[in-house]
């Protein structure tokens, strides 16, 4: 569905997230995360060999050999620099909810569950929150259930935590000191006002909010070439839809 010249919004997200990963030595990506996965593979391609990427669910981009626990042990050892988390709800304090809405014992809406979020959110230095759907339903004032808290008290061991939130409309930075978000850029077609209207939580708004930069021609070419083929190995449906490319 993408022409070669037209830039898809997802390509903008991929390029923007990739830029956030610059300088990381090891980026891990959870299962079912095609946009973060593509961003990590793009960042790796641009790192000229300096970045490792582990994509859970991938065979080629997953080098763990010690079973399901290794990702978590590896994070606790300080060997993972960046990871992605999402949420059925994300609130203005950086809390994420992957469990559900209503009484957890008999929920009105049930999400899959917390996965590793309650752990990795503490131990990976750069947690990037990602949720494509940006509505008052997903970005809420207060989550119904905290799978992973955005911040912790000073007596809690926490070398890591959320640093940014990327959605289908905008990019926010997260400040652990203030336990809140600041709008950094809005994607093409959005304005600061449209983002405010679609966001259920309050956030800091600088005087000037730029548009999210578009990927340049070199980045696009890389993304649509080597990176697209690598993405297709793990996310064939996603790659086929975005780039007319099967595995």
């Amino acid at each position, binding site marked *: 569905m993408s022409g070669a010249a037209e830039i898809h919004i997802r390509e903008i997200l991929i390029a923007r997230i990739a830029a956030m990963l610059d300088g990381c030595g090891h980026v891990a990506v959870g299962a079912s995360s095609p946009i973060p996965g593509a961003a990590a593979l793009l960042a790796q391609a641009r790192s000229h060999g300096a970045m490792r990427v582990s994509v859970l669910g991938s065979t080629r981009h997953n080098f763990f050999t010690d079973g399901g626990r290794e990702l978590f042990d590896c994070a606790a050892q300080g060997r993972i620099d960046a990871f992605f988390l999402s949420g059925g709800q994300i609130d203005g304090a950086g809390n994420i909810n992957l469990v559900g809405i209503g009484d957890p014992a008999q929920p009105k809406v*049930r999400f899959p569950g*917390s996965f*590793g979020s309650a752990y990795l959110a503490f*131990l990976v230095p750069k947690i990037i929150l990602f949720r494509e759907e940006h509505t008052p339903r997903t970005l809420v004032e207060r989550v119904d259930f905290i799978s992973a808290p955005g911040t912790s008290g000073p007596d809690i061991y926490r070398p890591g935590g959320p640093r940014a939130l990327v959605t289908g409309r905008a990019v926010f930075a997260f400040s652990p000191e203030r336990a809140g978000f600041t709008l950094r850029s809005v994607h093409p077609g959005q304005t600061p006002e449209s983002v405010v209207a679609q966001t259920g939580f309050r956030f800091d708004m600088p005087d000037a909010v730029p548009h999210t930069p578009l990927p340049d021609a070199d980045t696009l070419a890389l993304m649509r070439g080597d990176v697209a083929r690598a993405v297709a190995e793990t996310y064939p449906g996603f790659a086929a839809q975005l780039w007319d490319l099967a595995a």
Partner: protein
Amino acid sequence: MTGPAILDIADLGARIPDGTHLAIAPDYSGCAMAVIRTLLRRRISDLRLVAVPTAGFQADMLIGAGCVTQIEAAAVSLGEYGPAGRFNAALRTGKLAMRDATCPAIHAGLQAAEKGIPFMPLRGIIGSDLVAQRPDWKLIDNPYGSQGRDPILLVPAITPEIALFHAPAADRDGNVFIGVRRELMLMAHAARRTLVSVERIVDTDFLADEARAGATIPALYVEAIAQAPRGADPVGLFGAYGANEAALGAYAQASRDDGAFAAWLAGVDADASQTVPA
């Protein structure tokens, strides 16, 4: 020496009694789907499932058939096929006790069982509402904290009565090859009993070769084995065959509707051929 019993899959499944505390593999590892179907046909009851560390099709099917009273998992979903419909429905109607966990807590609990220790400490997690849901998780002050308070979470050992999974191959002595799927070895070490279905049983000794031995569960930990070619269908088996996407998609649809699930389950009941390995 006496190795694991070699059974057909119906007899392997018959070793799992009602009420078992049963550990199952995640969809991406070794799911003993053929054995699960024998349990469905039996309408095994009162299972307490432990997902290592997440659950998908196996759990949703068993929950839909009314076989499960409790599940401990870091997540239950059908992955790219969407929500686990029977799981969600059972939760909404209060028919299932959910013990929400997080992946490393389940791994740590199994490692505690593997080491014969009552608990394992774990960083992170504090401040998650998971802690309030889990009275068996305890907060203590780190006895090794250097100054001030340093709260740390303890999770208790998870010792499943039975671990059930599917693997590529067993050798003549009952050693089970698992490749890099080391969570299957952890399950076998942690559980009191381990039942395994395999694609094939081969006349060799996996422990004789240093490379293969490093990726093998010794027979000591294995009670019984059944040969079940394509025994992980339809979720697929690492390094052997992929997922049957049509079957998984059809199941995902059926799982979201009472009537459609009943029809799907009737199909399992009718397909007695699935109890007999090809």
